């Protein structure tokens, strides 16, 4: 069986830095605000190539986010860059009171999300950002699955008037989308058809979910649909209900805590609209550590094999 996953891998940071530089060159109102992590998030590309549009805000996330709100009221579209962990926890009050509540046009790029953050450990990993951001009224919460989707999502955010949080990751992932792909807010994307169960995944966990689905089909003859959810808020509840009606068994998969993230959002929808068995793949309410990628995925139960096991588990509940 032919895989839809590319052999070549690209980091989300590639698509991100390229797109950020272009937007800063094309739109006089676009400015980049950096919480002194530019060399990690790759916002440094703007500092190096379009320095007039780069504002170093120092290691002070709270001030950076409130200042972004002030900038937005003067007609500037600030793109704020930090780690997902710091945006979602150090400056969430500033984001709520001064950006989300007044619905100001501020973009937030949360780098180094999830578990695989280059050996930085639990202080820098982010397993709660989806849960935190999606509880804020007026927020748009996006978790693209590859470098190309990062570009498309950023183009959308540039056109959208209001707060957008974009969750990106550090390392390289297979390419899922090509240039023709169009991102639509609040719409899920079927990456693989299937009839026995549906994996609903987001962000970096999508390529692992595709890998799991292809393995299940090839090795076990189980037909698994993969529904990618780049838009966590607003959520494509219609697609979730349709999947539940079609396959009657749902696995959710995310590089995030199983509490409050995509799995919770999907479960909330299904409980109210179409109750079917659900198994959530994610980090199970525990603190993590630093370690090599493959070992981390395995220990914290989010590897493709864990997705495979979750599908088998949910099928037994059908």
């Amino acid at each position: 069986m032919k895989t839809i996953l590319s052999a070549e891998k690209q980091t989300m940071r590639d698509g991100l830095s390229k797109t950020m530089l272009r937007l800063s060159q094309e739109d006089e109102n676009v400015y980049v605000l950096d919480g002194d992590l530019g060399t990690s998030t790759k916002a440094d590309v703007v500092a190096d190539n379009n320095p007039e549009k780069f504002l170093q805000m120092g290691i002070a996330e709270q001030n950076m986010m409130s200042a972004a709100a002030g900038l937005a009221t003067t007609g500037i579209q600030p793109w704020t860059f930090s780690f997902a962990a710091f945006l979602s926890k150090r400056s969430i009050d500033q984001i709520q009171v001064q950006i989300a509540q007044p619905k100001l046009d501020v973009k937030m790029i949360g780098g180094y999300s999830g578990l695989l953050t280059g050996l930085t450990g639990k202080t820098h990993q982010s397993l709660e950002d989806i849960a935190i951001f999606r509880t804020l009224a007026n927020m748009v919460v996006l978790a693209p699955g590859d470098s190309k989707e990062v570009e498309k999502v950023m183009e959308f955010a540039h056109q959208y008037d209001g707060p957008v949080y974009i969750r990106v990751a550090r390392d390289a992932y297979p390419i899922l989308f090509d240039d023709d792909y169009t991102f639509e807010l609040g719409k899920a994307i079927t990456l693989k058809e299937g009839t026995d169960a549906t994996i609903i995944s987001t962000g970096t966990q999508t390529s692992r979910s595709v890998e799991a689905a292809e393995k299940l089909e090839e090795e076990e003859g189980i037909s698994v649909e993969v529904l990618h959810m780049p838009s966590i808020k607003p959520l494509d509840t219609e697609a979730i209900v349709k999947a539940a009606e079609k396959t009657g068994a749902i696995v959710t998969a995310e590089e995030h805590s199983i509490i409050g993230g995509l799995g919770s959002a999907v479960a909330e929808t299904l409980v109210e609209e179409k109750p079917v068995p659900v198994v959530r793949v994610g980090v199970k309410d525990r603190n993590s550590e630093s370690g090599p990628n493959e070992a981390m995925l395995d220990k914290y139960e989010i590897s493709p094999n864990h997705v495979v096991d979750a599908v088998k588990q949910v099928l037994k509940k059908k």
Partner: protein
Amino acid sequence: MSTLLQEEQKNLLINKSKEARKQLIKAVNHAGAGHIGGPMSAMDLFINLYFNELNVSTEDPDNDNRDRFVLSKGHSAIGLYAALAVRGFFPIEELKTFDSLDSRLQAHPDMTILPGLDMSTGSLGQGISAAVGMALGAKLQNKEFRTYCIVGDGESQEGQVWEAADVASKYKLDNLVAILDNNKIQQFGWNAGNGKREIPAVNAHGRWEAFGWHVIDIDGHNHEEITNALHEAKQVSGKPTIIIANTVKGKGVSFMEDTIKWHSRVPTDEELELGLKELEAGV
């Protein structure tokens, strides 16, 4: 001391301050909730800004070139509302809706519903950062407007205030003026050991100077000094200015002055009547 303030304008400011203080205590009495002490200490600052300094228009409150004002100590909202009403941004009658359901006069300022508010505040430390963003936005886009921000002395315990101070200085925001409402009392504060609770003495002047700001110390209830300080700030180049306005919490009503009790106490009808009399008499 030389003054830039003509006698007639000075009398106007004194009268408007008096009128706004009366409206403020009436509104808190009517709502049965709200702060008194902080809004009273900051009232001469509000009035001087809105009648003597800010380039703003009640007809065109969202004008792109207007001066910006951010009340970082957002819990003094009712003081700002009273000043805005007296200035004509909305009917004085509307002050009666303060804190009630569907009112534009929320307990803490909500920029999305009340014309004339440039930023939502209430969670302390955030307003001054937003003001830094506004001043930076003016610089980046070569806009002429200036940005003003009132910060509380209790509020200055928030670390974010100093993040903002640091970045404002780094970007040389000489179009930004912060005013510290230095009333020396916070909600509960520290035990001063003399039966009172207070904000421990901090070297505000030295702190702001160390962050690279131009610092001016004044009596925050003296309209001549406020006017002169705001004028001086305009002459400063390459750094932001902070005016340390030494004020009295609850200023204007004897029994509300300099007492922790009136941080957020609601005056009874009797206290209101007495307060209005005192304000009218100018005690």
